[in-house]
């Protein structure tokens, strides 16, 4: 039995489909990430699953039960909100206990669950504090503790890390991932940060304009993006997308002016318009030209400490290449880029 089944879910705002005919299934204890730019519908989808939004079509089943017409409180879900939604008028302990009290659990059990949730998030000594005396990071932990203390089938997280500063975000990412596997939770996690998505998810659903455009393991999405949108969204820097044409000889593709790549898309004919997707780290830089190389001029060099990103202007196309930190590149210098044929992804 799949843990969550969403079928043909549609939600309309005015004359636009915020969520457009989405079908999705999640296994128990799976960590699924909904990833996409703002406005793609990921938060809306999450809220529909939570029952916080009315849907216009489709069904939702959680743990086998049809919850489509049920209120949020009857869906057996737990949720962490983007701005934490920690109740300002209750202490931390009361916040964490909130849902448990609604579930009419015994006082002993509530105290026990509050304590263990607080320990898992390392906030045991904050239990009697008021939320307005806590930092953003601490409040975020309270929100997570509250969600995991609540006895629910499904844990929903709506961009829980986006309001934290960069360093804290990094820490919490690792902590959250470990925590979730420790308590064996089933999680749907919404984010616009593709690094978060790739590092945390068992599977990632990339969304664009209300639809899921690719669903798969992070490494799949990274290496084999299903569309130019996904290719351009995933990875830092994003995948280079080079429009080109299959050569007359059919042995390669002409890109970026005078560049030549020694690979062709399957089932293509000479003269076809194609798009070659190449990751920055899969491109080699040479000083001399070869049969299958792309000539260009160094446009910008960005040293990042562990490696450098050089942007090469090849016939008007800007190609980003990842090189070693000690690679000496001169702005304005001529370079020749080569790509292993098997690393090219053909996209339409």
């Amino acid at each position, binding site marked *: 039995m799949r843990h969550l089944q969403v079928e043909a879910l549609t939600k309309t705002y005015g004359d636009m489909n915020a969520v457009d005919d989405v079908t999705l299934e999640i296994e128990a204890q799976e960590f699924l990430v909904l990833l996409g730019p703002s406005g793609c519908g990921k938060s809306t989808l999450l809220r*529909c699953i939570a*029952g*916080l*939004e*009315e*849907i216009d079509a489709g069904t*939702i089943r959680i743990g086998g039960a049809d919850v*489509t*017409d*049920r*209120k*949020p409180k009857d869906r057996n879900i737990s949720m962490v909100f983007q701005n934490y939604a920690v109740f300002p008028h209750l202490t931390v302990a009361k916040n964490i206990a909130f849902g448990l009290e609604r579930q009419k659990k015994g006082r002993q059990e509530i105290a026990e669950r509050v304590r263990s949730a607080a320990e898992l998030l390392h906030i045991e000594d904050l239990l009697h504090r008021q939320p307005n005396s806590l930092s953003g990071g601490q409040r975020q932990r309270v929100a997570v503790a509250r969600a995991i203390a609540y006895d629910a089938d499904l844990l929903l997280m709506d961009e829980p890390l986006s309001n934290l500063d960069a360093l804290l975000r990094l820490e919490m990412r690792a902590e959250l991932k470990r925590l979730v596997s420790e308590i064996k939770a089933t999680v749907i996690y919404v984010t616009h940060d593709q690094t978060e998505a790739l590092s945390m998810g068992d599977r990632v659903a990339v969304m664009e304009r209300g639809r899921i455009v690719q669903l798969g393991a992070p490494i799949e999405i990274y290496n084999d993006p299903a569309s130019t949108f996904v290719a351009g969204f995933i990875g830092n820097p994003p995948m280079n997308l080079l429009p080109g044409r299959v050569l007359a000889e059919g042995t390669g593709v002409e890109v970026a002016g005078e560049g030549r790549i020694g690979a062709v898309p399957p089932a293509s004919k000479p003269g076809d318009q194609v798009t070659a997707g190449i990751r920055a780290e899969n491109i080699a830089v040479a000083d001399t030209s070869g049969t299958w190389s792309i000539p260009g001029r160094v446009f910008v060099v960005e040293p990042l400490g562990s490696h450098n990103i050089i942007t090469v202007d090849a016939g008007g196309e800007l190609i980003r290449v990842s090189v070693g930190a000690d690679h000496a590149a001169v702005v304005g210098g001529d370079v020749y880029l080569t790509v292993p044929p098997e690393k090219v992804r053909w996209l339409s």
Partner: protein
Amino acid sequence: MSARKSSGWAPYGLVAPSLLFLGVFFAWPMYRAVELTFTKADEPGLTLDTINRATAEASFGEAWRNTLLIIAILIPLQFALALAMALLVNGRLRGRGVLVYIFAIPIAISDLAAGIVWFSIFTENGYLNTVLVEAGLLDRPFVFLNITTSWPLAIIILAELWRATSLVFVILLAGLQGIPAEYDEAAAVFGAGWFTRLRKVTLPVLRPSILVALILRTILAFQMFAVVVALTGGSTRVLAAESFRWFNRLRDEHVASAYASFILLLSLIVVVIYLRVFRDAEEKASA
């Protein structure tokens, strides 16, 4: 909120009682005021007799003159004072919290109490006369509240200035505090002096607050009643006091309603003028 169940009726249900209430106790009396104005007791049908009865008296012209005069002087003074108070409090000053509290106290004071208070100061053997005589500036106490002079009008203005400026002050202060300090600082960096900054940065951004305060305060001022009664016993005529006099003393609710209609009309005209002026100022500023 659950899927498919429409929460459509809820907001209307929440809002309906207020609409109903205002319909009965606001819209209907307004209509009734106009109806009473154009009718007469014991006579069916519309007539202008009631209005004629009102205009026939000398106090009609007096009431209009006094009301308009008082307001024409009072409002600008109030706004200047309120702005000064707001600027004062918004700057660097120790004990600012106490100051805001003191400045805001008069909001809770009724116009009747204010009238009585200032009566006690300006009355013939009141404190003002005491101070003036003791200081040798006067030989005998001066009858300030002599209605044959224009002193009463001035005192009415003073009393209202004392009482009602706080309301404007609070509105302007809230508006001022909504202005990010960066605007003023940017202007200062680019060489604008204090007065220029006031004129070109502070006041324009304060414009919406000023408009709100103007409308609220002017409408309230048209209803001025108890201050005048407390200070002059009703000898000085103003529109609202006339309405009360016709109702209470002369037992004619039609003429009383006529005065109410006059005030309504005046309010409408003034609000429209304010909105126009401010809209034109906005357009000119953004041109």
